[in-house]
């Protein structure tokens, strides 16, 4: 009766890591992909650092028309979805499209495409009554980002439940959590689920500048993302996508699929406190963690690795540390915790799915990726954040968490499915 959901395919488009192999090598080596922004001239901005992908969509099989009509984030989503499909080994021509669905998470949608088109129709902000004669036909698809989910559905041939999920920076966890639920309740047998964001644009940079959320460490871009370090002073904006193929466990086993990990528990809570602020006690994130572990029927002590949100802002890293202590108790001091945002930046809604991919790979490889650039820990962040170097570590259960504007706090538990059967 209880349908269990497993990951059978992974596709990743991350800074410094195009494809799962390159992505995992970057994380295992503890290399950083942060650099001075090249996607636009950042001279006028407080923060001039980002984690960018060297991405030529044509090289990934997108046609000229697809490139023209899709925002960069949608392009990344479609490429990652195709990778995931190939990785899964599913013969999609033999799938029942009605039983196959798509969920894509995104925090800011087609923000790059919208800004480019805005500049044209407004003549760089000179006209409030913008000129429709200069607009492009695919502008509606930029306006409403459910077009991302539609593009992925077309790419994989899904005709079941299809949606975009947008809960700020937890979108990537919530999108996958939603997909898991659809398989469990029987609304779909296969879900192609993930998230994408491509926010490295002037308007996004300006809005994070305005609240000093991003780091001004412009003189040392490679070491700019410093989660849990005493010298951290903001996050580094990133971009990317990760898409997973999710299947019901027995069906996956029946077709001899390579099962990467099981998604055993998921929960989300709101802090109902502030659109951008966090209360230092981490109560709501702790509640989400507890609920996710409950759903997985696991105890705090079962967690072998915590993939942290670890954005590198002053308030987040303390908030999160408090949440781990509150939810995991004494085990919080024993379990390795790390933030891959130290290497690939914070790609807003996308990062949650990228971190789920990293969590599955940690289980598969028994290796915990490090927190790069962590040389002088904040005394208030006094847990084991696996500084600088990856750690070989028996990893069967991973907790991954996210925290987002709007007050969203999400947690997901991944396990080695064989462990649960033993």
């Amino acid at each position, binding site marked *: 009766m209880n349908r269990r959901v497993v990951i059978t395919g992974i596709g990743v488009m991350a800074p410094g890591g195009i494809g799962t192999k390159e992505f995992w090598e970057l994380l295992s080596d503890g290399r950083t992909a942060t650099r001075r922004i090249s996607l636009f001239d950042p001279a006028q901005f407080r923060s001039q650092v980002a984690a960018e992908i060297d991405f030529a969509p044509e090289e990934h099989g997108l046609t000229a028309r697809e490139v023209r009509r899709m925002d960069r984030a949608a392009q990344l989503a479609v490429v990652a979805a195709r990778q995931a499909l190939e990785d899964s080994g599913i013969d999609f021509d033999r799938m029942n499209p009605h039983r196959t669905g798509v969920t894509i998470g995104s925090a800011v949608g087609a923000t790059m495409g919208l800004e480019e088109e805005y500049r044209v129709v407004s003549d760089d902000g000179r006209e409030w009554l913008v000129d429709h004669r200069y607009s492009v036909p695919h502008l509606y698809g930029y306006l409403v980002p459910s077009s991302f989910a539609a593009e992925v559905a077309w790419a994989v041939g899904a*005709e079941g439940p299809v949606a975009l999920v947008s809960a700020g920076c937890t979108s990537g966890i919530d999108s996958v959590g939603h997909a898991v639920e659809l398989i469990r309740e029987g609304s779909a047998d296969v879900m192609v689920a993930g998230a994408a964001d491509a926010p490295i644009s002037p308007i996004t940079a300006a809005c994070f500048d*305005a609240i000093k959320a991003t780091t001004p460490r412009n003189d040392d871009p490679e070491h700019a993302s410093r989660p849990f370090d005493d010298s951290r002073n903001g996050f580094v904006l990133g971009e990317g996508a990760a898409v997973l193929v999710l299947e019901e466990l027995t069906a996956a086993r029946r077709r001899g699929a390579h099962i990467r990990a099981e998604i055993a528990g998921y929960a989300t809570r709101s802090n109902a406190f*502030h659109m951008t602020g966090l209360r230092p006690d981490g109560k709501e994130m702790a509640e989400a963690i507890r609920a996710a572990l409950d759903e997985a029927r696991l105890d705090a002590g079962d967690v072998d690795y915590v993939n942290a949100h670890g954005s590198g802002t002053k308030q987040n890293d303390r908030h999160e540390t408090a949440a781990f202590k509150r939810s995991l108790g004494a085990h919080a001091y024993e379990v390795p915790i790390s933030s891959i945002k130290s290497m690939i930046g914070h790609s807003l809604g996308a990062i949650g799915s990228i971190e789920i991919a990293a969590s599955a790979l940690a289980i598969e490889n028994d290796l915990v990726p490090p927190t790069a650039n962590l040389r002088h820990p904040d005394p208030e962040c006094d847990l084991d954040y696996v500084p600088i170097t990856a750690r070989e570590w028996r990893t069967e259960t991973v907790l991954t968490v996210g925290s987002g504007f709007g007050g969203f706090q999400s947690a997901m538990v991944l396990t080695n499915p064989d462990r649960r059967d033993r």
Partner: protein
Amino acid sequence: MNTSVIVTGFGVTAPNGLGTRDYWSATLAGRSGIDRVSRFDAGRYPSRLAGEVSGFAAADHLPSRLLPQTDHMTRLALVAAELALADANVSPGDADSYGMGVVTASSAGGFEFGQRELQNLWRHGSRHVSAYQSFAWFYAVNTGQISIRHGMRGPSGVVVTDQAGGLDTVAQARRLIRKGTDLVLAGGVDGSICPWGWVAQMAGGRLSRCDDPGRAYLPFDARAAGHVPGEGGAILVLEDAEAAARRGAGPGYGEIAGYGTAFDPRPGSGGAPALPRAMELAVRDAGLSPGDIDVVFADGAAVPALDRIEADAITAMFGAGRVPVTVPKTMTGRLYAGGAALDLATALLCLRDGVIPPTINVTPEAAYGLDLVTRRPRTAPVRTALIVARGEGGFNSAMVVRRPDDE
């Protein structure tokens, strides 16, 4: 055994009425909220009509500190949420805060706010961008602001499925309640009636260019030539029926009895439209057969090819002219993520009063084979309603609601 999920209250912000009483009396009287755009000078654009929530002064409803940080549509959403809680007689402060969630639909976020900040950036430079831009325009803003205002800390989220979103969020709320959350605020309030949003909507190619409010949005009419966009929507209070009974809430407006969603095949692939499948899934999920459905609230795209698909889906399921069909959004315009949520609230009022609101201005094209309720409301014993919603790109959703005493 699945928990029964009921609607115990809702709040309406519609172009033809702010608040349920005004909206419902206008709707039964066939009074339209469609008029010339007033929020900006639309004279230069080929489309010039909209359904605006007229007479809405945010400062009358919301604390002044919320005004600088919110887009117009978020202010409407906050008011709808407050009306909904009052209607359901819920005081969130009294309840377990983790037992209450918020799920809203969005299409474009706070787009007018976003246009202003884009202009500040490109006209004046990055230092002129508002500190509120980081959240005032994004898609999650309404859920975030509602959860903060009412202290709701349970599972929450945002669904973007273009104009099907209003139903998809209610389905998600039902899912959350079945998993153990007692109460979820769900629905959608939307709108991007600003020049930049207008131009982006026009690019979709479905806006009517007619200047006559009485002829601009005519679904299932031979003269159909696109729709009029609008703003507003509805937020509903959904509860576990048992939890509602425990707090003495009564049976509510009705039960969310069934839901189905299906996505169209890739354009150009020649596959059949998915709308009939979404409708069948919803009716089956409700444990009903088509003959049990008393009224259909149609999507009513007013694009001939889309009207044809919907009419065929209805006649295939029920037989030609066998079920009353109505499109009250002819009085409001299409409210994007808010539209289907408002249709759902309207369907619940229809169940309550046993009266089907009319589709105004339309002369039904006979070839569609629909029993369209036109001109005047129709009195009928209504136990169940099917609501249909579609979003651009291939989204199709359908929902069945059932009157409380018809279990």
